[in-house]
């Protein structure tokens, strides 16, 4: 088939490009959180190689392979992007740039934004110049996200924003925030929310990191104290994406993305190796029948789950939306990832409980996975969504 031949040619081409563009010291190493390039004004590269690789990717649009070329992407098809990811994994090359701008803001703007909004915000994202964070949850709006109380008052030429966000990932390192704010306090709770783009440098915005059980502080509290947000950042470039008071539609759309992403986060962590192979490196671990049985069970489930992720992506690509079924990906992937880390911890035994022992960051990673089934909607909320929207079981 000519289509297959074209994709095979693309695979060769993209692999050659990775090998020529990505400095050799970056290749052939397992991906870890410490190797992620997040970008932004405050970003500092670990070394020149990271910078070289990111710049090469920017030049080819490969920091956002699927986005249109005019917004800084490479305009790849889904099949081509998949091949690119596979080749990155095979060569153990790190993604040149990761960010909430790429994962979350981009999909929202591409779907709901104006051309001017896309030009103004997406290009800096693809170039790693602006780092975004997500302002969704609040102390009183966790699982019940539509209960957000941070309010934006209409002051004519600007919005006046007051309130508090929580679990804002990396807010202390972000340049801009996309936030859910209440613009109509009298409307039903889903109908008075807007999706607003706010410069974190605005007077009145402050952040405070939250220390987690993993010892790390990836999340912050973010406070808005009489923050003036211009109604517009330029011609046809309003600070609210989509219609005022219709932000919940965008939030729901993005939550679907986020859930697929968090659910899929379990893949690739082992650098393309099976769980059993990783455990096989630990002397005697696989001789334990319980460990072996658990490793087999998790491997079977992980392989079938990875196929399901691909099937759902193909379905979305074919224009048949995945919709509420994305809740399943989020639920299943995160629970699976927690099981995987429990087994890794158990197999590494007393060595695993050391913060900085022979297994590196295993302990904090294990603790971090516990947030997977909470952030972006808890497993219980996912099961509620499946039960109500997919199975159509009655409300209580």
């Amino acid at each position: 088939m000519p289509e297959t031949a074209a994709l095979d040619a693309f695979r060769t081409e993209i692999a050659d490009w990775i090998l020529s563009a990505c400095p050799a010291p970056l290749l052939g190493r397992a991906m870890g959180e410490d190797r992620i390039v997040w970008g932004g004004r405050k970003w500092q590269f670990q070394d020149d190689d990271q910078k070289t690789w990111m710049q090469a990717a920017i030049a080819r649009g490969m920091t956002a392979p699927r986005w249109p070329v005019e917004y800084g992407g490479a305009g790849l098809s889904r099949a081509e992007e998949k091949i690119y990811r596979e080749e990155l994994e095979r060569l153990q090359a790190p993604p040149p740039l990761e960010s909430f701008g790429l994962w979350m803001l981009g999909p929202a703007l591409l779907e709901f934004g104006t051309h001017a909004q896309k030009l103004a915000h997406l290009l800096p994202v693809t170039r790693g110049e602006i780092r975004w964070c997500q302002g969704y949850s609040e102390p009183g709006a966790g699982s019940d996200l539509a209960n957000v109380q941070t309010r934006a008052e209409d002051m004519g030429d600007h919005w006046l924003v007051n309130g508090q966000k929580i679990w804002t990932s990396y807010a202390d390192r972000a340049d801009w925030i996309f936030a859910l704010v209440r613009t109509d306090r009298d409307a039903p709770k889903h109908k008075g929310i807007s999706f607003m783009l706010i410069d974190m440098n605005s007077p009145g915005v402050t952040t405070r990191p939250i220390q987690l059980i993993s010892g790390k502080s990836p999340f912050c509290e973010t406070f808005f104290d009489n923050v003036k947000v211009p109604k517009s950042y330029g011609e046809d470039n309003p600070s609210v994406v989509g219609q005022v008071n219709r932000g919940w539609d965008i939030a729901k759309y993005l939550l679907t993305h986020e859930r697929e992403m968090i659910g899929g986060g379990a893949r690739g962590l082992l650098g393309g190796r099976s769980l059993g192979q990783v455990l096989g490196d630990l002397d005697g671990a696989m001789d334990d029948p319980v460990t072996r049985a658990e490793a087999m069970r998790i491997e079977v489930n992980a392989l079938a789950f990875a196929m399901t992720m691909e099937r759902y992506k193909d379905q979305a690509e074919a224009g048949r939306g995945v919709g509420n079924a994305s809740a399943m990906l989020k639920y299943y992937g995160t629970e699976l990832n927690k099981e995987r880390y429990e087994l890794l911890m158990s197999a590494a035994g007393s060595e695993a409980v050391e913060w900085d022992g022979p297994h590196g960051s295993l302990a904090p990673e294990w603790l971090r996975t516990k947030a997977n089934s909470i952030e972006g909607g808890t497993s219980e909320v996912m099961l509620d969504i499946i039960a109500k929207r997919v199975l159509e079981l009655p409300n209580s």
Partner: protein
Amino acid sequence: MTSLLETEDETMLRDAARGFLADAAPVANLRANRDQGRPFDTGLWREMAQMGWAGVLVPEAQGGADMGHRAAGILAEEMGRTLAASPFISSAVMAATTLRAAASQQAEQALTAITEGRLIYAVALDEGRKHAPLNTALVAQKAGNGFRLTGTKAFVADGGSAQRVLVLARTAGSAGEAAGLTLFDIPADRAGLHKMARATVDSRDHAQMVFDGVEATGDEVLGTLDDGWALLARGVQAGQAAVAAELLGVAGGAYGMTVGYLKERKQFDRTIGSFQALQHRAAHLWAEIEVTASAIANAGRVLDATPTQAGLAVSLAKARAAQTVDLAVREGVQMHGGIGMTDAYDIGFYMKRARVGSEWLGDYGYHAAQVAAARGF
């Protein structure tokens, strides 16, 4: 890798099969078969053959539809959904795949007869209580120009109804070795072949076959002497994928009945499906079925594209299917409450078929170990 999404043709096949089976083979038919003491409805099997199902894996030159393993999986899954009993997997999948791979003139004639529904094959493989084909100990001793088969085969699906049997026998080597196994294709009424029907919980045809010096000619060797497993393994693998697909259908059928019941049954003045404890269990079950469906589709795709490298895909499918159907029927019976324990209600039939299907051609443990081996641990 090709997409796991169904093609338009596959969706049409599924819809047609589902429509036909809902009318012609609802669960009530299984109950009637059981009550009348027949393993399956021969009229139904004739109709299936007329629709091309018996020839789904048979080349067009032999009159088949040649639709491939993904299509066979879709048919098996839909049959599982209504527990439709037929020799589809034994004859149209396992025997047909094996005979096709044998590629002899004799095999081609048999394929035509299978396609037309005139001939039913059984595959006599395992001898112990678990699936372990290489442990074959049934002996085929050289006797003149032919062989004499002595030993016992257990759990032969459709063994009571089949007119012909593919039997794996040891001509050399010892238990545990693939080398030295030879495959014979003989009539089921050959002298010395005693078929003992076993009453199994799923009310289907399973027989013990005792070979008491059964004679077979050299012409009845299928494939190569001492290398029969290489040939039969193709059929067994296709069978494992089809059983896995059937179990996915069994899980889907049990799930559908159960969610239907949750929406209708009232207690404490509420529909019980409004209780979150039950909602979450039902939602989890749905998630497991969705994930297993991917593994089933993948097995069919890989068998169609690269049949000699399908081991991982097939074992993954069977391992997942066994786990998922087990959950589906246990949750199904439990959520039906007392009525789920009654013979008058259908959910119990799903539990019984699930147990048999999980065991047939390798259980979860067998296939999970195959996955582990293929994944390097």
